[in-house]
């Protein structure tokens, strides 16, 4: 069983030439969002790369992230699970169920202790362990148990990266992110609802290629994919700068591809690679298809205001606040005004007439 070849070796065995390997490296470099100048370095690293064991844990999730992975085309999900990684536990895809599935997980943990990767999708409810269980085990327990021997943890999707939808106000189940629980292992956040498949595979490819985790930003996201905002890389940005905006869906501006800022696009606050990688084999992406960015790769994006409110519009019930303020202001203003009137009228009533004799009298006093 323990016949583990390097990726290069197994490609060679399939009859792949050096030229083919270079092409493979070119695609992988592009996938990892590295510049083409990195191709030789990637090739070099790949010659000794081995398939890591991956345990994928699904907690409070919707399977959208796993589905997203299934849309990966470069590498394909087949390529990924046959050539790049050994996906030893993944509810949506794995053949085994029940005890057998759990044994697969335990086996992988034992065999690859200290070396396997844990991928998590979904948040973890802390309010009650009964809010989410697998095989009778609470999510928290399963996470702790599985992460113990992991080399690194990849939190795939905004739920596992930042708490996501379950954590949205009022967070009924006390959901939390992976990184708020896992402190002693490197955690790579791959947010998005779901993340772009290429980004998931890109992060896995990076680990496979370099045996390390990519450079992360303050929110634990790989900078290569999350280093720039949607807005900065949006092909509609020139229209924003020219002041040309779609005012409603389906108007002339919408048809001409003008900026969607006014329709609530959260592109300016959203760090993700949608604008360049696009979705589903570069077929399109949300802004290209006429809908503003929801901001799905950002923490708490669910609570960041209506998806159709421009980013500059305050999110609270400001009309109500203003209403109360006007009422209070009028009342307090009247009170202050009447107090002033009182001050003044008492000053008037305390007025003692000044006469020229007073000057003399004062002089005498002095």
């Amino acid at each position, binding site marked *: 069983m323990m016949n583990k070849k390097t990726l290069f070796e197994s490609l060679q065995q399939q009859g792949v030439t050096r030229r083919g390997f270079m092409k493979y490296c070119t695609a992988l470099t592009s996938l990892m969002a590295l510049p083409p100048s990195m191709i030789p370095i990637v090739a070099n690293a790949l010659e000794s790369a081995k398939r890591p064991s991956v345990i994928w844990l699904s907690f409070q999730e919707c399977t959208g992230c796993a589905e997203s992975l299934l849309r990966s085309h470069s590498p394909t999900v087949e390529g990924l699970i046959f050539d790049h990684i050994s996906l030893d536990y993944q509810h949506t895809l794995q053949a085994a169920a029940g005890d057998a599935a759990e044994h697969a997980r335990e086996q992988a943990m034992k065999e690859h202790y200290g070396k396997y990767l844990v991928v998590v999708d979904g948040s973890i409810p802390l309010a009650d362990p009964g809010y989410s269980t697998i095989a009778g085990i609470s999510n928290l327990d399963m996470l702790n148990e599985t992460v113990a021997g992991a080399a690194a943890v990849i939190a795939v999707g905004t739920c596992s990266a930042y708490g996501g939808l379950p954590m949205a106000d009022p967070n009924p189940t006390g959901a939390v992110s992976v990184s708020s629980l896992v402190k002693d292992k490197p955690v790579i956040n791959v947010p998005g609802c779901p993340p772009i498949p290429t980004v998931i595979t890109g992060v896995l490819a990076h680990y496979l290629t370099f045996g390390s985790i990519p450079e992360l930003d303050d929110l634990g996201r790989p900078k290569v994919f999350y280093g720039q905002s949607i807005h900065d890389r949006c092909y509609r940005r020139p229209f924003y700068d020219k002041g040309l905006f779609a005012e409603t869906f389906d108007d002339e501006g919408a048809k001409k591809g003008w900026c969607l800022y006014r329709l609530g696009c959260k592109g300016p606050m959203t760090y993700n690679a949608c604008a360049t990688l696009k979705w589903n084999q570069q077929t399109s992406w949300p802004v290209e298809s006429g809908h503003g960015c929801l901001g799905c790769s950002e923490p708490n*994006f669910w609570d960041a205001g209506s998806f159709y409110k421009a980013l500059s519009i305050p999110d609270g019930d*400001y009309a109500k606040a203003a209403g109360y*303020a006007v009422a209070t202001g009028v009342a*307090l203003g009247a009170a202050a005004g009447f107090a002033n009137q009182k001050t003044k009228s008492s000053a008037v009533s305390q007025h003692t007439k000044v006469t020229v004799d007073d000057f003399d009298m004062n002089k005498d006093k002095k």
Partner: protein
Amino acid sequence: MEMFSNANDFLIWVRGDAFNIALFILIIGIFIRVMEIFLLGRKKDFSEPRGTEWGPGLKNIVSRSVVDSGTFKRAPFIVIVGYIWHICFFIVLLFFVPHIELINAMLGLQWPGLPSQLVDAATVIAIVSLIAMLWHRLTHPVLKFLSTYEDYLVWFVTFLPLLTGYIAFHRMIDPYPLALGLHIFSVELLMVVFPFTKLMHAITLFIARWYTGAMMGRKGIES
């Protein structure tokens, strides 16, 4: 920063609760200040009027925006920079699309925005002119003499939104939610400070100009 686990949290707070609080204080403050003024009232004027009050009062509101040539000659810096600052500030405030969206959401009024390069240039000019005005205030004997801590506070809270706006627009602070959050927060600071400082001139100058214009109009003086 324990209150916020990340920049987005901060942005959500400044766009939500903080904005409401700031708006609340701003509106209440303005009402109090304006009512304090109006309820003090004016004595009835028994002198025989030579002209009316309303027309000249309203006219003065507009005409005071033009400085007399003598003053311009004596203090060209403050006049020119003052104009530039106010014009650029209003360009930025009223013609940057995100600001228009805010106004539209709050008041239901909308108008076309300007290209962001233009707004950006106006921001830079406004920032430079504010700095110049601070320098002027620190060096001109009269301004130095007149200035109180409030003048510097007001300068600061006015400068901050421009600076943070510029930073946010150019994404000079990462991540953007933090930059935008700081911008909005600085505006909220301005909103909170507004009713209790000379920033109120933005509202009361209309009242002041009207009173003076009306008083002069009554006497038949062109004001």
